[in-house]
């Protein structure tokens, strides 16, 4: 039957044209990171020509274009999401802590303390020289100012992290709402259509976006919808079917982050938010460290002052005022007030006994200079360790990303080969129709 040849040729033409369209779509989306490559299933079409027992051979019907299949690998997707959560956590924490490191290193906390110590040592050489006394007092002023700079730059680093966290919360809620909408649309979508494939792309994109900010556990249901639970203590549901919850963020008095969903507080364990929370927790420790350093300098200086007498033989007055890095300041009005001589020394004594005691407590192994050094060493070691971890996780995340792209991405070489193959198939099918036409013409031309 020449008409069957027509039908077969036409079905082949349709199938190869549809496949060509999909190939073109794949090539067009080669640079789209959220796109998963598509392919078309095909099945042979066979028709039964007559009714009855002992029927003759089946008649052939050509090919039937099947459904659009989206390359998918739930495992690889999940791996990519989890590693990107881990990387985002390490990276955010690293950058935040590096900010804090810069803040403390450039504030001159340590150099200020050393300059103070050096000025006092110089004063020991000639304790009554007014220029030396003045320079010692000025070095105290500089040191106090450096403490205040450290305090404000640390506060600045903290508020940068807080602002970033606050700015990301609407994004997260937006992504969750989007995922809920995609879930609703997926329920209504028909299996094997290009529209459904596009919805699944949108679903995976939203999941990846969420995983950047929070470590998530995603459950992919049979109908393609995704339920999301945030990895946290305790785990909280973010998206359930078509309903998305909303994440709230608050700042505690010490600057740390407090998350809740519908009143249930949770502490995230992965993603950029966990990195920010961890960095802010450590900044609390840094702030305490800087404050206690300032307090110890104030205590040491004022204790030494009270144990000595100034140039006029009067008991020494407090050198520093304040209780923390934020409010440390010079309290002494005049350089003559520096109590270099021990108690009981007459006016104008060149005795440096009290100054030596002050220097000894400043330079002691438990003194502020050593404390500042320990604080900086601890911080830079932490940043260095975070950098190493970030690098390691970066490699893991990159390989998971590569794995995902291999599983779902577009390979231009394959597409080019497909293009040639499908073009040939299309031409071959049109040739089939041409042959059918000729056969038909031959039949019509019989005389």
């Amino acid at each position, binding site marked *: 039957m020449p008409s069957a040849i027509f039908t077969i040729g036409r079905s082949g033409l349709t199938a190869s044209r549809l496949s060509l369209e999909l190939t073109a779509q794949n090539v067009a989306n*080669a*640079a789209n*990171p959220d796109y998963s490559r598509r392919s078309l299933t095909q099945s042979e079409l066979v028709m039964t020509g007559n009714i009855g027992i002992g029927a003759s051979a089946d008649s052939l019907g050509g090919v039937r274009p099947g459904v659009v299949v989206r390359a998918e690998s739930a495992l690889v997707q999940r791996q990519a999401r989890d590693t990107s959560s881990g990387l985002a956590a390490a990276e955010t924490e690293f950058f935040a802590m*590096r900010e804090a*490191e*810069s803040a403390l*290193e450039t504030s001159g906390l*340590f*150099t200020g303390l*050393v*300059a103070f*110590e*050096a*000025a006092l*040592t*110089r004063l*020991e*050489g*000639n*304790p*009554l*020289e007014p220029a030396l006394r003045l320079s010692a007092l000025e070095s105290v002023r500089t040191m106090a100012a450096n403490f205040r700079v450290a305090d404000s730059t640390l506060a600045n680093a903290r508020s940068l992290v807080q602002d970033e966290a606050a700015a990301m919360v609407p994004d997260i809620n937006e992504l969750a709402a989007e995922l809920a909408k995609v879930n609703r649309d997926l329920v209504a979508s028909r299996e094997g259509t290009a529209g459904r494939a596009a919805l699944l792309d949108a679903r995976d994109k939203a999941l990846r976006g969420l995983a950047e900010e929070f470590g998530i556990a995603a459950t992919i249901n049979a109908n393609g919808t995704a339920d999301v639970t945030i990895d946290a203590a305790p785990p909280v549901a973010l998206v359930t079917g078509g309903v998305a919850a909303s994440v709230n963020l608050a700042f505690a008095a010490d600057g740390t982050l407090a998350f809740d969903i519908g009143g249930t507080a949770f502490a995230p364990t992965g993603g950029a938010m966990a990195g920010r929370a961890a960095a802010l927790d450590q900044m609390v420790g840094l702030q305490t460290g800087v404050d206690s350093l300032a307090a110890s300098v104030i205590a040491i200086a004022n204790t030494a002052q009270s144990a000595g007498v100034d140039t006029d033989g009067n008991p020494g007055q407090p050198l520093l005022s304040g209780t923390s890095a934020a409010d440390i300041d010079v309290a002494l009005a005049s350089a003559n007030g520096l109590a270099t*001589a021990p108690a009981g*020394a*007459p006016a*104008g*004594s*060149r*005795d*440096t006994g009290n100054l*030596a005691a002050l220097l000894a407590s400043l330079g002691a192994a438990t003194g502020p*200079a050593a404390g500042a*050094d320990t604080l*900086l*060493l601890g*911080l*830079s*070691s932490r*940043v*260095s360790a975070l*950098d190493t971890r970030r690098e390691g996780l970066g490699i893991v995340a*990159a390989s998971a*990303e*590569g794995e995902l*792209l*291999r599983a*779902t*991405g*577009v*390979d*231009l*070489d*394959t597409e*080019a*080969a497909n*293009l*040639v193959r499908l073009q040939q198939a299309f031409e071959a099918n049109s040739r089939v129709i041409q042959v059918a036409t000729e056969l038909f013409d031959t039949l019509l031309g019989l005389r």
Partner: protein
Amino acid sequence: MSFISNSAGSFFNRSLAQMADLRAGIERQQTQIATGVRIERGSDDPAAAAQLRSIARREALAGVEGDNAAQLDQDLGAASTELEAVTALLQRARELAVQAANDPTGVDGRQAIAFELEQLSEELFTRANATSLTGEPLFAGLSSGTAFTRDGLGNVIYTGTPASGAVPVAPGTVIDRGLPGNAVFEFVSGGTPTSAFAVLGGLAAALGGGSPDPAGAANAALEGIDAALDTAGRAQTIIGTRMAWVDQVQQQQDTRGVALAERRSRIGDTDIAEAIARLQQSLTALEASQAAFTRVSSLSLFDALR
């Protein structure tokens, strides 16, 4: 149909990451060469940064200690100069006393000697109250006032403190700033505590007519003058020893300064030769990987199909 596909996206991602790594390395090396410092921030090398901080502190303190030592050297030098003059002065007084003890010296002669001794006594008083270049008294111990004062009766009294302070010139090393005046001008002669001022003043008064036996008084004063000379000589020796000590400490400071600088350089400075070689290596690698990227990225089947 299953075959290994190499996604175009993953190839571009990989190439970009590799080139970004190389570029970051080159920038870092360039900064190291430009600043001469290997460690840009503490986290680059926490242990080395901590060492650098401790070296910076040591260097700051060593600089100050060096200044202290130089000033101490000056002060001790000034005290030594004064003591030399005091010794010469006491020797002259001794000559005068010997002269006065000789009977042939007449009344006029003794008057002249008494007059000169008074002048010498004045000079001694001035020298005992000499100050350093920075205006601090040299022989007043810890006091900043004058070392010796005259009371209403004209007696010279030591008003300084019996100890002089010490100056830190190196970690753990303190050197006394000078000698207190009582150790330089006061002594025990013939069992009684007295001072150079008392001896000279007493002799001058005796020779000026205060004594019926001026020659005997001069003879008796010789013992006191000798004791004064002894005391001044001893003080001179002590000061000289301390100056030698300060010199030695200064030399040690120089050596230590060089050692500290070397250490700092070894820990924190860029090894220029190595950095430049590494920079060249990275540049070559970057250029090569850029060239490779251009070649490989054009290796698409699309380019082959015409």
